[in-house]
């Protein structure tokens, strides 16, 4: 699509949202705007962004488009745990999900053979329990109980990942074997945990079909990726998904390892201080849906930060390349004014062969603590070198480094490798 065609689609979406949703009409009118006022991308910036609280409070009556109900055909309802407890109830049309997924996965040729004409991939999910609308945390439910309407089997795992008992791990491994999936949709931290257990139990994770893996839900750390790749081997196509429950696939990792943003199904902006950022600068991702007839979203501030790199990628995809930075509420804010993103922290930590799991936590005073669970290959000199790198990266703020044998997950079941109570307080 040309830029003008894309912007025309955006204008159509604005007009549709204005005409068909109570919330967005009021949102525009409160700013003294009507759809016909938005004639150019510059005009578009006059529209105040929308955000999760708007959609949470107004769901469904204010944001579901006229003519739809939550029981309309192809409507998938969900209740997401959100990040750090910022939960959301929403709905999405199954074919919009599929369209966005197809665009995103299209950047990675290793996923090309996943969808064959006439067949749907068998999907198995191993992710934080609150990310699935089925009871999977207690482990007492059956495979049938945990099979979603689209056929996805949700595997059982405890809310507090590291507290998952052995019998529940064995159950997950057994069910993968039984289900014979084509696609594992996983939280990488969770799946790395499963591989550690599988190794300990002498088990493998395989399928008679060709397995693929999509990683999502939380930042894919290099530490988790290293463990997954080591255990599963080089033949497994792995792709890091950029997504949100309410929108589906916002982007994907190509077969060259770059992250591409889906600007075909969304109009995307990277915004800082109200203005679009230049290539190489970090900005918050705002998305505007295109042709979303159920819950159109205009300038939806995702809370996720990226750096658009402005470069092309050898994979030949036209979708823009970005670097994943992390969520605003997780940014480490230093005394000298610098901000260290979860993505940057992960780059400093690297794939760290001596580490199974880590968490960097900034308290309200600004002090940081880096806690890690050491792996079997841990070496004192590596830990010392990592400590030095982190100290440098986080100076002048104080940093404490601790080896531990347990790290707690969030109540939602997610495990965030980098959190800042200072940023989270500021975000409230």
């Amino acid at each position, binding site marked *: 699509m040309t830029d003008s065609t894309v912007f025309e689609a955006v204008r159509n979406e604005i007009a*549709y949202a204005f005409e*068909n949703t109570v919330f967005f009409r009021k949102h525009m009118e409160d700013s003294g705007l009507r759809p016909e006022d938005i004639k150019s991308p510059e005009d578009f910036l006059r529209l105040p962004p929308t955000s999760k*609280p*708007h959609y*949470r*409070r*107004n*769901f*469904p*009556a204010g944001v*579901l*488009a*006229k*003519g*739809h*109900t*939550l*029981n*309309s*055909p192809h409507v998938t*309802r969900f*209740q997401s745990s959100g990040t750090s407890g910022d*939960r*959301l*109830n929403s709905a999405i049309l199954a074919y919009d999900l599929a369209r966005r997924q197809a665009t995103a996965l299209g950047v990675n040729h290793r996923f090309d053979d996943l969808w064959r004409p006439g067949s749907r991939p068998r999907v198995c999910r191993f992710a934080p329990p609150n990310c699935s609308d089925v009871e999977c945390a207690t482990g007492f439910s059956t495979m049938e109980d945990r099979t979603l309407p689209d056929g996805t089997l949700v595997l059982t795992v405890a809310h507090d990942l590291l507290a998952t008992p052995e019998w529940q791990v064995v159950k997950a491994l057994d069910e993968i074997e039984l289900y014979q999936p084509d696609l594992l949709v996983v939280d990488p931290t969770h799946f790395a945990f499963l591989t550690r257990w599988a190794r300990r139990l002498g088990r493998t994770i395989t399928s008679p079909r060709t397995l693929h893996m999509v990683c999502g839900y939380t930042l894919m750390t290099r530490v988790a990726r290293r463990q997954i790749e080591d255990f599963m081997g080089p033949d497994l196509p792995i792709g890091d998904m950029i997504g949100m429950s309410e929108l589906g696939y916002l982007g994907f990792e190509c077969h060259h390892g770059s992250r591409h943003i889906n600007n075909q199904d969304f109009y995307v902006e990277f915004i800082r201080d109200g203005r679009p950022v230049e290539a190489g600068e970090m900005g918050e991702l705002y998305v505007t849906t295109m042709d979303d*007839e159920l819950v159109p979203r205009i300038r939806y501030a995702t809370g996720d930060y990226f750096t658009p790199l402005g470069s092309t990628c050898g994979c030949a995809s036209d979708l823009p390349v970005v670097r994943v930075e992390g969520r605003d509420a997780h940014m480490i804010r230093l005394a000298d004014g610098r901000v260290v993103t979860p993505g940057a922290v992960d780059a400093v930590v690297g794939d760290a062969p001596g580490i199974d799991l880590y968490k960097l936590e900034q308290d309200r005073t600004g002090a940081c603590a880096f806690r890690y669970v050491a792996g079997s290959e841990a070496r004192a000199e590596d830990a010392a070198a990592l400590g030095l790198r982190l100290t440098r990266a986080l100076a002048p703020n104080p940093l404490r480094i601790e080896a531990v044998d347990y790290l707690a997950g969030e109540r939602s079941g997610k495990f965030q490798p980098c959190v800042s109570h200072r940023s989270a307080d500021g975000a409230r």
Partner: protein
Amino acid sequence: MTVRNTSRDDFPALRREIDGQTICYLDNAATTLKPRSVIRAISEYYESNGANIHRGKHWLSEEASDAYEASRVLIAGHIGAAANEVVLTRNTSEALNLVASGLDLDPDAYIVGALDAHHSQLLPWRRTGRLELTRVDAHGRLDRDHFRELLRGRPKAVALTHCSNVTGVVHPVKELIAEIRSACDATIVLDAAQSLPHQRISVRELDLDFLAFSMHKMLGPTGVGCLYGRSERLAALRPLAVGGGMVDWVDLDGSVDRRTPYKFETGTPAIASVIGCAAAIRYLEALDAGELHQHEQDLCAALVAGALASPGVRLIGPPDQNDRIALASLRLDKGVPTGEVARLLSDSYGFMVRSGHMCSQPLATELAGGEILRVSAYLYNEVSEIERFYQALEELLTWMGPVAAGAR
């Protein structure tokens, strides 16, 4: 309108906004919100004292002990009991477990309960002996003939529930107790967790052996349950736990328990919370009882009328206001997920209501066939909130209904 001397401003949590929307708290059967005086009493203890009770001779310990015991006196007075007849526990469940296990009944002891019991008044007795449950009718009222029939088996204990946390029905316990006394010499244990917040009870008038309730359901802090026991019955009860604070003397050969109620209170208790309970009792007792009753009736009428008038819901419990508290449990039409509705009522409309089996699964299954939505009001709620709740529910259910025409 709320009750005279009660102001919504007394309850800071009612000012809470989520996503810019003021909340409406209608989950009072689970726990009530706390007035500022209770919050202040707790804070003051921590800010100006903070010492442990009963074991020290220093100033702060004496002061804290005095405040703690003064709270016990107030709680006891509220139910017409003597202070040494009130054991402070963690909650109603612990109080009922203390009685069930402390009676030292034979494993096959015959016990009569009721189908509408909370799990806390059901499971301890099921573990203790051979429990038979009195049936209820379609509206949740006790089947009195069945009750009398069960009493003919001469039970060792009768575990009564004063008010069901599912139907809101308040049972005629005075009549039931009279029937028990004339039929057998069973120990009578009343769960008053749902009734006492709504009406005063005199343990003397009721001729009870034991009564259990929780302060957090009547404006008090969480972490404080109460067990009233008639003096001689309490003295004969075996403590649930042993340890520090419940003994007068310990040597290598044995120990001597303290007198009641202290022999049931081992370990450091929830001192601040117990002190906060005094403020809750004072708050409740300062209210005009007549107005409180009328307000309760108005809330109850609005809850029942709203349920009966709402499409897509079935009221679980009597379709009238007689002998019930301001509580309505609703069964939604088949296929409408109760938990999702509760979550949407909360996040989209600001109504905090309960969903599930209400820790009374046998009754919820029997009367409703599964999960229910429970709306429970208290003295700071207003009739207009109940009306708005039903409007919100009706609107929400239309969005969960069949497809409308005209989609793009």
